């Protein structure tokens, strides 16, 4: 049993899995990439822009890991800096201004842990995204396509609908990190993976996501067609909804497990 969750983690990290850009190119038409956060730099770990979904304009944002060693290096292995999150927020605000829905593809082991990232406020950048996304008045759908690593993933995940690929994972901490903190032994990552309940099925049973996407024909034409259909069906429901923002609040409001102690 304990190998099972960790096997999912390994699958989610496979460099052969479709990455953010694969989804963008195969699901949408006329993608135009927009660059930069208008404050400091352009973070290549996050790709964003506008595209057409069945001839309707949408804003798409993806954390991009890259496939080859060289691509992965350029994309910083999909570990965004604060600039990436600020670019994403800029594009989301732009989407709100022009009334476009937002679709995010999440795939990161986590926000980058580095000196520059801390100097430029990694925590503040993520916090601002969480706060601002909660009240954007256009539909937001976020899909976890590989790794959903902690706050760095959640920073694109405050959505009306959150979906996960069958073999993607979503976790508060990497199993290795968890094992090394709790048991001083990163080799116990398989036990940690099991304990953290990070699979798509776990996330669904915890009420964190709405839908698990099958990986049948992963990366093939049929696969992307299926996701395109799901997205456009869901967006036509969401764009009719006049109460999006307060439903989004309630969606997150109810997540958690607390008990009442006698006073």
């Amino acid at each position, binding site marked *: 049993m304990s190998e099972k969750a960790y096997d999912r983690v390994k699958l989610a990290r496979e460099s052969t899995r479709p990455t953010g850009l694969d989804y963008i190119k195969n699901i949408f038409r006329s993608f135009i990439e927009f660059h930069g956060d208008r404050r400091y730099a352009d973070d290549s770990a996050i790709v964003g822009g506008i595209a057409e979904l069945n001839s309707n304009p949408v804003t798409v944002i993806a954390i991009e890991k890259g496939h080859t060693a060289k691509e992965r290096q350029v994309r910083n292995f999909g570990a965004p800096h604060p600039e990436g999150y600020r670019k994403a927020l800029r594009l989301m605000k732009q989407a709100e201004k022009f009334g476009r829905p937002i679709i995010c593809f999440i795939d990161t082991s986590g*926000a*980058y*842990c*580095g*000196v520059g*990232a*801390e*100097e*430029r*406020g*990694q*925590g*503040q950048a*993520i*916090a*601002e995204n*969480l*706060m*601002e996304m*909660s*009240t954007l008045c256009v539909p937001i759908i976020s899909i976890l396509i590989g790794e959903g690593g*902690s*706050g760095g993933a*959640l*920073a694109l*995940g*405050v959505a009306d609908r959150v979906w996960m690929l069958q073999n993607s994972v*979503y*976790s*508060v*901490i990497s199993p290795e*990190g*968890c094992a090394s*903190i*709790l048991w001083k032994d990163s080799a116990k990552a398989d*036990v940690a993976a099991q*304990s*953290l*309940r*990070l699979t798509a099925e*776990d*996330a669904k049973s*915890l009420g*964190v996501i709405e839908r698990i996407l099958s990986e049948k024909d992963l990366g093939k034409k049929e696969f992307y067609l299926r996701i395109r259909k799901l997205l456009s069906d869901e967006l036509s429901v969401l764009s009719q909804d006049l109460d999006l923002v307060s439903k*989004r*609040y309630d969606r*997150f*409001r109810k*997540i*958690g*497990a*607390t*008990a*009442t*102690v*006698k*006073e």
Partner: protein
Amino acid sequence: MALINFLKPKNQLEEGGRTSAPIHEDAGEPEKNCPNCHKDIPLSRLWANDLVCACGYHFRMKARQRIKLIADKDSFMELFSSVKSENPLNFPGYKDKAETARVASSEEEAVITGVAEIGKQKCCLFVMESYFMMGSMGSAVGEKIILLFEYALKHRLPVVGFTVSGGARMQEGLLSLMQMAKTSASVKRHSDSGLLYIAVLTDPTTGGVTASFAMEADIILAEPGATVGFAGRRVIEQTTKKSLPKEFQTSEFVLEHGFIDKIVSRQNQKKMISLLLKMHNGG
């Protein structure tokens, strides 16, 4: 995310302070060694000075003690004290750890919430507790914070909050992570209705709390020398294979980089907060 050295007693011999047992002038008076100036301070003097050393080093403080220091006498009324965490993932060892934390801190959870007056200004107040699993945020902490912001919104009150946290509580997995989104949404609602939120970052404020309600205040203050950052120092050193300067991720560091408004020593906090509340007209 890191629960750094939680509840681990500091071995003073390892901190370069002294190599032999100190000679007590007045034997019997317990002392504490200051990690900054390495002097031994009689506990009575330290307590009389709100746990601040003569050199300016701020020791960690229990949440109840901080409430006493900040709130006007007898003005604090606790709210939502009955909310506590479960073990929703049946995470190994969590139950025992939480029980130990309850004993160590005499608190049910890692945050205390309520209403208080500070310099006769009414406000909602939350103070996180470092002695409860290093102030880590699980479902109960998230729920109490959100209940407080909702209460403040309903009663049109400002919120003053003291943060101390190792980050999200990993024993509650994804549910802990979601508390970041949940608390942020409640801060936003409170903010959008024109109400004031003042955060005071104390040692340490890191991880998921930094990346949510700690960094979302209108006015962000910090105690001198507090660790303030997102990723753990060790993790950054491992990732970048560089050793980091001592001042990295301190209050002074984040002030210099533009992420907080002001560093305020413990002795001046009450005065500063009441002035800020007054200038915002209680809003």
